[in-house]
């Protein structure tokens, strides 16, 4: 490293950025979350009349041209536009000034669960209709999931480690966890990380309808995402980006950075069970929380809040509840466990990062977000899900789970500094 710097072995969060269905910006989203707002509605961006699920939590308050060059805004896939915006926000929020002294020590790890599906769908249609010579030269660069990381590095001149994580719905959490490890082992002093996703398009919705994992409550979209509720019938698809600036603790302190919290634990395991269904014994989910606690050097008693994966599918919510009870024992009943997917739906590769940011804001403000649409208790889901209304409560340690198709499990623990 050109900087004469020894890694402290501790990693803190100094910047955050959000693009969600509740708004473009951290405070817009967070105030909506704390108020239990519900942005779910009929899909408006394309004709969904033939789809079995016709509802989503779409990002509407967003124009890429407000954030990037007009030509780029028109061309890039939406997942890149979200990533560009989230990362720009997080970097500005961190106050980290990128210059020739530090740019080779600052990296990017922006995960994307799928990549440029809309780009792929549109260009495939062009090829079918006009032959291969009609395919845009931008198909490949704007479809590949790693382009979010590449793009951010180009825009901000960040020349440190640059990679991408693709672990479906665990992507955002794995990205943050891996970025944390990169800083911890001394390969970078700071990382721009998070997750981004834009799956609400023709082929994306077609694919997820076929998996039969989404809610079909088309006539009552506001009540469709209902994690842990007995009447839940699947997830509501969402989109957006959560981005964080992670920094070596000493580096952040030396520049007088404002610190949201410390990343203290990261677990990652596999179910090795089924391509889309979670293990009925929740073995991977149990081990991932235990691993994060062990690496954090924390006992289960120290956790004040759990932001659950809580997708609103029959399997996930039951198995995740089972896993939490296994890991935390009697204390499981005393920890507030909420799913912010009840409001934002499930933004797949972005969700783990968005929810990590909610953990940090819960720590900052002493507010635990609610699980809205909680009406009918399910005997299999008997924890304190912070039903319907946010709660004022001091949070020192917050844990968040993310589980993805493929059987990927990720868990992050944040601690107040």
């Amino acid at each position, binding site marked *: 490293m050109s900087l004469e710097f020894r890694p402290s072995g501790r990693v803190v969060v100094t910047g955050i950025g959000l693009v969600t269905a509740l708004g473009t910006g951290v405070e817009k989203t967070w105030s909506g979350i704390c108020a239990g707002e519900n942005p779910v509605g009929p899909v408006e961006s394309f004709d969904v009349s033939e789809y079995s699920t016709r509802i989503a939590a779409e990002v509407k308050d967003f124009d890429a041209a407000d954030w990037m060059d007009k*030509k780029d805004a*028109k061309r890039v896939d939406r997942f890149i536009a979200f990533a560009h915006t989230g990362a720009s926000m997080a970097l500005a929020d961190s106050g980290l000034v990128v210059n020739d002294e530090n740019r080779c020590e600052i990296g990017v790890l922006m995960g994307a669960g799928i990549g440029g599906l809309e780009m792929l769908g549109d260009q495939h249609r062009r090829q079918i209709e006009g032959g291969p010579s*009609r395919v*845009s*030269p*931008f198909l490949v660069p704007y479809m590949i999931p790693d382009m979010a990381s590449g793009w951010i590095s180009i825009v901000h001149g960040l020349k440190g480690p640059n990679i991408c994580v693709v672990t479906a719905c665990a992507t955002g959490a794995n990205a943050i966890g891996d970025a944390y490890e990169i800083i911890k082992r001394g390969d970078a002093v700071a990382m721009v990380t998070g997750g981004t996703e834009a799956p609400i398009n023709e082929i994306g919705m077609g694919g997820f309808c076929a998996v039969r994992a989404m809610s079909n409550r088309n006539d009552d979209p506001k009540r469709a995402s209902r994690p842990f509720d007995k009447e839940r019938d699947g997830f509501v698809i969402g989109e957006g980006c959560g981005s964080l600036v992670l920094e070596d603790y000493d580096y952040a302190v030396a520049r007088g950075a404002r610190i949201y919290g410390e990343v203290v634990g990261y677990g990652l395991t596999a179910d090795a069970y089924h391509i889309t269904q979670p293990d009925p014994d929740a073995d991977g989910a149990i081990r991932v929380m235990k691993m994060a606690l062990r690496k954090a050097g924390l006992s289960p008693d120290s956790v004040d809040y759990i932001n659950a994966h809580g997708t609103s599918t029959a399997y996930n919510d039951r198995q995740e509840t089972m896993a939490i009870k296994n890991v935390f024992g009697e204390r499981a009943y005393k920890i507030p466990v909420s799913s912010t997917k009840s409001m934002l739906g499930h933004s797949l590769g972005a969700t783990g990062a968005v929810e990590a940011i909610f953990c940090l804001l819960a720590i900052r403000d002493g507010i635990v977000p609610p699980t809205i649409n909680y009406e009918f208790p399910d005997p299999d889901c008997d924890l304190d899900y912070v039903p319907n209304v946010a709660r004022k409560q001091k949070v020192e340690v917050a844990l968040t789970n993310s589980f993805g198709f493929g059987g990927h499990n990720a868990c992050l623990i944040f601690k107040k500094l």
Partner: protein
Amino acid sequence: MGIVQGMSDAEILAKVIKVTVEELSVKEEEVTEAASFTEDLGADSLDVVELVMAFEEEFGIDIPDDDVTQLKSVGDAVNYIKNKQG
């Protein structure tokens, strides 16, 4: 084919300018006949491929890869398309 036939030089130029403005997101007044796509209008190699595809669609013509190097400026494009009328 044939869309180009019967089109006046002024019509071809107007369409080339319109396509260039759209594809490269540049201001209309920048798109002079002398303007080079790469040097003056900021196009990189991928932009050029996209631009040529847009010309093909707009004028209903085929521009082989080997000919693309001839289309350096706005005026080159107009002349090339005009010659395709033959």
